[in-house]
């Protein structure tokens, strides 16, 4: 089945999300859709999957114009979307999740789970997905959960599959397996759209690449001949340097030391189990690992947000095992949190208010009782300008910023003050190439100025690019340490999977 988008235009108020977009998706082909955050990728795909209606333009399926006005229409037309965040019921089995909403029914309208199981097994076998229909979702690794999402879409007889940032949550090994699946789907005649900001992945798996910028298609590329740099330039609209240029680190005295650190998670298990860790001034220590192996809890313990169960933490020679978050901030710790929407910013606060979210009590901004708003505004405006947060005014709500600009806001807040240690969790998650580059440069700049950096990331590229030392965390323990200059992705990937 071929899908053709013609002249699609979509406005939200004054913002043009898509402007006269032409795009063709063909059977037996993987289309890579590249674009910065806010370029209009998601809007475009939401139009295709029936969540939005375009203001102008038409959608043709196999040459015939169709109207897609709801998600149901899209499913009926054979268009399915695999979302970045899975839409699965954790306590249901694979088969139950797959048939949810389109359950096969038997006599007296009873749920016919037997047929459901059989169909899931068939689809699974047909595309080499290898998923047990009776497994409970929450007990499955993320990579398998993603396959369940794919089966869900296939079960609804989709011939066009749209993947939104599908590799964001996977280990390098899982990414390889995922690519195999995608290729096998393509070979069976499906049309696929692969949305990503990871250039090399798109180059590797796509048959054709379209690049969106500011709502418009700015170019198409052939992955056989295109290069990372060309694509990045197309996306951003100006030449940018890929990769981080950095001098070798010159580590100073130790800043942060953890000894036999144990931290509990919500389920009262040791999420961090006997971790020893030293971060020195002027070095970047990257903690690699698949999400959910204790990195979140480690970061929260270091920054005073989560109590330490046993062991000790010290910072600048002071014991901070029981220190509060406020005390850690005051000692010169910056924290770029893992999930900016959940905890990094307050969407209903203005940019200025967010800029002082954890420094408002400081004598620069407050008299002790009242806030000195003029000083807050002045500092915010300066930081916004310095850190290139794109906004017309600091009085705009930060919830209206794009993801990349929200992250720049967080980075601006954390790095604009005098810090000794940066604790950065997923500092570039969901950012576009231009912003990633920017945040990386800032982190290295801080390192060169003698700041210690503890960086947690599930993106191995980021770990490799920034770190001076790499620690791999698996099931709450540091299982391996690498010298970043000598480590290979393969070695680290194996350690992340708990093999080495």
């Amino acid at each position, binding site marked *: 089945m071929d899908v053709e988008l013609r002249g699609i235009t979509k406005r939200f108020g004054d913002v043009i999300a898509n402007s006269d977009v032409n795009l063709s998706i063909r059977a037996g082909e993987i289309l890579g859709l590249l674009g910065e955050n806010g370029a209009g990728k998601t809007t475009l795909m939401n139009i295709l999957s029936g969540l939005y209606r375009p203001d102008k333009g038409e959608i043709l399926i196999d040459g015939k114009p169709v109207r897609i006005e709801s998600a149901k229409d899209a499913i009926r037309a054979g268009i399915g979307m695999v979302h970045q965040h899975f839409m699965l019921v954790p306590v249901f089995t694979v088969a139950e999740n797959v048939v949810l909403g389109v359950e096969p029914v038997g006599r007296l309208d009873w749920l016919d789970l037997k047929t459901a199981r059989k169909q899931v097994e068939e689809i699974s076998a047909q595309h080499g997905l290898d998923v047990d229909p009776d497994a409970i979702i929450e007990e499955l690794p993320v990579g398998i959960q993603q396959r369940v999402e794919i089966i869900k879409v296939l079960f609804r007889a989709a011939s066009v599959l749209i993947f939104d940032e599908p590799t964001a949550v996977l280990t390098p090994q899982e990414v390889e397996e995922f690519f195999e699946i995608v290729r096998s789907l393509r070979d069976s005649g499906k049309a696929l759209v692969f949305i990503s900001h990871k250039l090399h992945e798109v180059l590797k798996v796509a048959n054709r690449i379209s690049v969106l910028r500011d709502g418009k298609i700015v170019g198409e590329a052939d992955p056989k001949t295109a290069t990372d740099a060309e694509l990045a330039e197309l996306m951003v609209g100006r030449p940018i340097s890929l990769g981080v240029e950095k001098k070798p680190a010159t580590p100073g005295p130790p800043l942060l030391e953890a000894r036999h650190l144990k931290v509990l998670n919500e389920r009262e298990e040791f999420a961090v189990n006997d971790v020893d860790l030293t971060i020195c001034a002027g070095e970047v220590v990257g903690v690699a690992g698949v999400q959910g192996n204790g990195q979140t809890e480690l970061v929260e313990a270091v920054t005073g947000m989560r109590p330490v169960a046993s062991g000790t933490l010290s910072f600048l020679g002071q014991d901070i095992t029981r220190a509060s978050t406020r005390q850690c901030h005051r000692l010169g710790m910056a924290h770029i949190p893992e999930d900016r929407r959940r905890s990094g910013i307050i*969407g*209903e*606060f203005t940019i200025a208010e967010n800029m002082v*979210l954890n420094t408002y*009590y400081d004598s620069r901004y407050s008299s002790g009782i*009242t806030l000195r708003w003029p000083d807050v505004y002045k500092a915010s*405006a300066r930081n916004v300008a310095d850190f290139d947060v794109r906004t017309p*005014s600091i009085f705009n709500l930060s919830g209206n910023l794009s993801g990349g600009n929200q992250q720049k806001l967080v980075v601006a807040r954390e790095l604009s003050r005098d810090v000794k240690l940066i604790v950065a969790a997923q500092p570039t998650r969901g950012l576009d190439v231009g912003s990633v580059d920017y945040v990386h440069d800032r982190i290295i700049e801080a390192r060169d100025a003698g700041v210690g950096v503890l960086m947690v990331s599930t993106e191995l590229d980021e770990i490799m690019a920034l770190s001076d030392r790499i620690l791999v965390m698996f099931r709450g323990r540091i299982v391996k340490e690498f010298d970043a200059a000598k480590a290979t992705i393969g070695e680290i990937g194996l350690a992340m999977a708990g093999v080495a």
Partner: protein
Amino acid sequence: MSEQTKRESLSEQLLQRATVSRFDVEQVVIVPVLAVVLALIIGGVVMLATGVAPQAVAQSYAALFTGSLGSVYALSETLTAATPLTLAALGIALGFRAGLFNIGAEGQIILGGIGAVVVGFSFAGLPIYLHLPLALLAGALGGAAWAAIAGWLRAATGAHEVIITIMLNLTSMRLLTYLLRNPPIQNPERTDPISKSVLESAQLPHLLDWLEPNLRLDAGIFVAIAAVVFVYWILFRTTIGFEFRASGLNPDAARYAGMRSGFIIVAVMALSGALAGLAGANQVLGVIGRVSPNFSGGIGFDAIAVALLGRSHPVGVLIAGLLFGALQAGGRQMQASAGVSLDLISIIQALIIIFVAAPVLIRKVFPWPFRSKAK
């Protein structure tokens, strides 16, 4: 232009305030006004449906108007009713801002009233400039302490404040009945449950009795206005208000920013209770002069509606408090001169809240004044 000057001019631009969007104006101004209009229309339909003659409906609404705004007496009644509503609603609004649903204003009003009356009938011989502030303070402290129990339980054990404050409401009503039947609070000359009277030195002075003796408006209105300013100041000018608002909008971000959530919960509840307590003190020291079993009269529940209608903004709460005060004063007139039950006013109040909570409905019924698209 050098990089430096470029940045400086950019920060100048950034300091320009964004213009208020059309959508916000419609949502904050037009929707509430039309909600009142629609509620009045439906109130009229209800009257017609229950057999009230069309002329009587017109007469009722005329009485509603004259009874609330039509004379000095009407205005005095409106303001007298608006004062405790505004005070208690400010407390509830403060809670909303911090993400806490303080449903216990009624109980805090009762405790505030008890505190105020005890100080009010004791300390004979104190001059008014000491006695009155002391009695008001006792009211505020009574409400604050009562609400702080709920705050502390929430912070220490995670028990939900809605449940606790409901229970504390019930407890406070029983406590009041008990206290009113026993010394030292019960008036020894009476057999029914009624407290001793507040001494003159602790009464909120009536402001207009020089015009006409039955004008009840008292100095409590100044307390309410001061409270509006105070709550605005706390919320938008102080560091603790910043913490309140941050925890209300995003508790995770507040925790990340190192704010002490337990302290904030207790502080917000105590402040919220203090304002409700002042509402109780206002009734005792200004309107009634003593405490009787039902002196709180459901103000604490109406105040929830006022806080919602005022969108938890101090100025909005003041306007909403005045509106509800007018409805109550006018409603009494309506009952007296047109014979329509005061319950109709409750229906109208409830309808207003429903329509404010469902702005899409208002936009559907009155599409004309709206130019921006609903989000």
